[in-house]
């Protein structure tokens, strides 16, 4: 660990911008949308002050932002962008093109509700809506994790050549000031290294076509190869987190197990709510209740085997989703059920909760109350619904 590390108080957005300053991407096409705004507005100021020499492109929409990022990354440089909500919806046509062309673009997401009705506040509907488009998705609990995940995600993306989203909760994390530790510039530079693209358009010695047509005789094979790339992520993520722990002292895993060892009841959650749930777990533990938490970090790819191992001995599980899958059960809950199916001859009682849509507050007491509910698999319950 370097002695040059310093502690700062920053919003999640400014922490993401600080990470961008240290990464110093080559190209950043951007289009404004709340609550992503603090990321880009902080970063363009850094660029204007001459502390980063990124080419900022003001584009006319998020569709263009992702298109320009794809073009730049395909040309052979590091391209990044940031967005939220409707912006991600508008990008959604281009997202699978980035992953299909195996371009490791980094996108910082301040997750927000999607319309209609219009709502600018935090939930996970935008990122969950694009969960099947071939992007790596990492959730961040707090400002420190936003900063750390930016480096981990970039390194991971470039290693397996897939694009990655670093997700923070809109407003709750993106606009709240928290203390965090910033690594020194040279430590970060050594960790992320130079970008060496495998295939790139400006390689004049080896000219290539990107994004050609692939008909029924080859399309299937390209997609299977892409599945293979996703499968590599989990193993690489372990190694990268190990290296990151050596330079930062912060040891991250695929997920965080919080007081799970002897837990009889556990909650599974992603994002800032996991922080609130830790406080609820602590207070219930003081009263002698054996409760725990599993915090999701890497959501795509989903680490089924590892999560099954972590939850194996917890018979009562509640899964908190900050999103809806209309006409289906909530996505995170489905993944947890899917994971536990591989544990033979064990009956789990898994309760699905939907909470916090459109920025509805979820407080410690709400989670404590949820822990005391009767959990059953039959129906979805709602936290904070009027």
């Amino acid at each position, binding site marked *: 660990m370097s002695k040059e590390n310093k502690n700062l108080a920053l919003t999640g957005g400014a922490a993401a911008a600080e990470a961008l300053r240290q990464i110093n991407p080559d190209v950043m096409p951007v289009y404004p949308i709340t609550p992503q705004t603090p990321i880009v507005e902080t970063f363009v100021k850094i660029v204007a002050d001459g502390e980063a020499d990124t080419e900022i492109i003001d584009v006319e929409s998020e569709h263009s932002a992702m298109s320009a990022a794809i073009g730049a990354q395909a040309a052979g440089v590091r391209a990044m962008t940031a967005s939220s909500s409707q912006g991600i919806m508008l990008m959604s046509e281009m997202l699978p093109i980035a992953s*299909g062309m195996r371009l490791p673009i980094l996108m910082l997401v301040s997750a927000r509700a999607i319309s209609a009705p219009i709502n600018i506040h935090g939930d996970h509907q935008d990122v969950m809506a694009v969960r099947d488009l071939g992007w790596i998705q990492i959730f961040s609990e707090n400002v420190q994790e936003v900063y750390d995940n930016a480096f981990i995600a970039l390194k991971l993306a470039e290693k397996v050549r897939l694009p990655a989203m670093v997700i923070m909760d809109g407003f709750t994390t993106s606009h709240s000031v928290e203390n965090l530790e910033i690594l020194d510039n040279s430590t970060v530079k050594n960790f992320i290294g130079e970008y060496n693209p495998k295939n790139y358009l400006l390689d004049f010695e*080896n000219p*290539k076509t*990107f994004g*050609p047509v692939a008909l029924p005789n080859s399309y299937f094979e390209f997609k299977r190869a892409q599945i293979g790339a996703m499968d590599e992520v989990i193993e690489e993520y372990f190694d990268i987190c190990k290296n990151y722990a050596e330079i930062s002292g912060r040891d991250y895993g695929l997920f965080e197990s919080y007081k799970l060892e002897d837990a009889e009841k556990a909650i599974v959650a992603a994002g800032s709510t996991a922080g609130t749930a830790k406080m609820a777990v602590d207070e219930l533990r003081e009263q002698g209740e054996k409760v725990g938490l599993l915090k999701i970090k890497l959501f795509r790819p989903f680490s089924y085997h590892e999560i099954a191992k972590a939850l194996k001995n917890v018979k009562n599980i509640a899964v908190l989703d900050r999103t809806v899958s209309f006409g289906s059960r909530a996505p995170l809950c489905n993944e947890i059920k899917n994971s536990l199916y591989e544990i033979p001859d064990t009956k789990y009682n898994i309760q699905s909760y939907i909470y916090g849509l459109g920025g509805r507050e979820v407080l410690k007491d709400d989670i404590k109350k949820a822990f005391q509910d009767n959990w059953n698999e039959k129906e979805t319950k709602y936290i904070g619904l009027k």
Partner: protein
Amino acid sequence: MSWKEIEEGATIGHDLTKSPKTGDWRYMKPRVDKKNCIGCGTCFSYCPEAAIDFDLERKADIDYDICKGCGVCASVCPKKAIRMAKNV
């Protein structure tokens, strides 16, 4: 081809020595009258195939491997220094 051997990200590599030359399509061939050419660069910017460059004397110089013979250069040349003639 099996998915294990297929090109990553569906990129296609090109072997330039084997690639067809668009110059083969040409019916009419532009010729630059180097005495009249003033090196203004108009043809350079109009050429849809980017087949025109300057030579060492800053006169228009056409790459006939690429030039398809469309004639845009001849029509935009302010000095009428480029003429189209049948390809031979």
